[in-house]
């Protein structure tokens, strides 16, 4: 814990002496871009919607674990909101969208967002709005990973992990794909299929493998403590995804509408497909299946939202659902414990979406479908390998020093009792 504090103190000090308001001059020149209040309004709304996804994810994940881990699991998402919330404003935005220096970007004037306080972007929105919108993506990505090692990690280790993960993996990756780095403009990744879902999926897989299964898995069935809350969370995720995808157009117009449309269609198609599969296999359509299919559809359309039309969205949703369903069956055969299927849904559907979108592009690129597919593959592999390798290093280091895996008695007692000293549902006992 001490190390964290030192880090934080260092940053706080740094910020007090930073060159605050001295960028006034340079800004003047750019100020001619007129503000587009409509686009700004939609980007502000999108920012709110994407932020809403994080509590939505907390509910989604929180409902799926066992009762004794519900608070701990929700805290994984909430902690990301707070920790990355500060970190992104301090240096994350600068690393991602600063002038490219190869591995990552950096501009001192973007440090603490001070230099962009009154800048505008070419799209007619204030740059701070763009920075905040992007910050919400940086928040939700580490929160996603937490599902892979649910119910068995220490909170302290987790906090340190997401700080480092964000600095060493998310920011560079996002920089490469969106910020002017070397993948920018090649692979199509409209709203973060590679940067967010594939990187989270692979990182989750690596950590789940390294940390090992929960005690008792897979012999002991671990039933969701609150499917009702998982459904509520799924509802918020769906709605929030409109901000996620349609907001990624950085506009409020045709492209925005198109992105929203295919998002809606792919989510629906994914959910319907999973229900049908289950109806055939088990004669019963489960609600957990429904939300898994919905999520698969949403993840698959994420990289494609700006570039495919309704039929493509249906195919992507259907395909993602089918492939994820098979992936989950494979997982139970392989027996590793990716507890809430971060890889099985986000990783797999992310890959399906990133590759399959090539065949449903609204405008076929000049370099042809084959070449585009190659770019897509490159994006997938680069994100996957980079995220996987660095995550492994981080996990090992943290587990060896601060400790990441909970002790057996603590795990049996549950995270809520052992790590947070609370219990999620006081109502269960008379009080």
């Amino acid at each position, binding site marked *: 814990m001490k190390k964290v504090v030192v880090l934080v103190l260092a940053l706080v000090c740094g910020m007090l002496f930073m060159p605050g308001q001295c960028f006034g001059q340079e800004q003047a020149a750019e100020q001619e871009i007129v503000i587009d209040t409509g686009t700004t309004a939609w980007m502000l709304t999108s920012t709110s919607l994407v932020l809403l996804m994080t509590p939505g994810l907390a509910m989604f994940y929180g409902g799926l674990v066992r009762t004794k881990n519900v608070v701990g699991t929700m805290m994984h998402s909430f902690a990301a909101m707070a920790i990355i919330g500060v970190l992104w404003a301090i240096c994350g935005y600068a690393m991602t969208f600063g002038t490219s220096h190869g591995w990552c970007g950096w501009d001192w004037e973007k440090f603490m967002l001070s230099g962009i306080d009154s800048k505008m972007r070419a799209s007619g929105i204030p740059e701070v709005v763009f920075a905040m919108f992007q910050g919400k993506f940086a928040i939700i990505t580490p929160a996603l990973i937490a599902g892979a090692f649910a119910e068995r990690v220490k909170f302290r280790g987790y906090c340190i992990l997401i700080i480092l993960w964000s600095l060493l993996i998310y920011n560079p990756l996002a920089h490469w794909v969106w910020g002017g780095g070397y993948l920018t403009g090649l692979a199509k990744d409209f709203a973060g299929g590679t940067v967010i879902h594939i990187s989270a999926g692979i990182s989750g897989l690596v950590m789940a493998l390294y940390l090992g299964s929960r005690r008792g898995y897979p*012999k002991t069935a671990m039933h969701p403590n609150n499917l009702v809350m998982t459904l509520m969370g799924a509802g918020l995720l769906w709605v929030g995804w409109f901000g996620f995808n349609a907001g990624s157009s950085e506009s409020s117009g045709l492209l925005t509408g198109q992105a929203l449309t295919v998002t809606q269609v792919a989510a629906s198609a994914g959910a319907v497909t999973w229900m049908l599969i289950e109806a055939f296999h088990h004669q019963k359509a489960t609600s957990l299946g429904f939300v898994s299919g919905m999520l698969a559809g949403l993840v698959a359309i994420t990289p494609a939202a700006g570039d495919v039309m309704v039929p493509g969205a249906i195919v992507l949703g259907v395909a993602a659902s089918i492939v994820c369903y098979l992936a989950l069956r494979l997982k139970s055969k392989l027996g590793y414990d990716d507890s809430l299927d971060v890889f099985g849904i986000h990783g797999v559907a992310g890959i399906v979406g990133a590759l399959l979108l090539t065949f449903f592009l609204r405008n076929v690129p000049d370099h042809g479908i084959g070449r585009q597919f190659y770019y897509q593959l490159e994006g997938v592999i680069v994100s996957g390998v980079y995220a996987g390798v660095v995550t492994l290093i981080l996990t090992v280091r943290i587990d060896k020093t601060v400790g990441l895996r909970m002790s057996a008695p603590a795990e049996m007692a549950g995270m809520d009792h052992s790590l947070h000293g609370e219990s999620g549902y006081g109502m269960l006992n008379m009080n």
Partner: protein
Amino acid sequence: MKLITAIIQPDKLDEVRESLLKAEITRITVSRCSGRGRADQVDLYRGQVVAPDLINKVRLDIACNDNYVDIAIDAILTAARHGAEGKIGDGKIFVTNLERCIRIRTGETGGEAI
């Protein structure tokens, strides 16, 4: 007086209650519990003994006079079974001796208070 405690499957609660009503046993206390009976899922997992999971059950407590005990047990037995031959997990009935019974409202005791 005896206290009959039955652990049954939740989906059979309504049927068991209707069956008890037919046998004119109306007073009952019901609560949630989890249980594990026939432990065929207990196994070694990577060399460790693992506590198998608990399954949702419902617990019925029925206090009744001695002459009603068999009637009540029969009513439960018929209704709580899944299918004609029963299924694993259908549940169990325990009978203990009840020494005193008091109705709070009136203060009556013994057989009348059941």
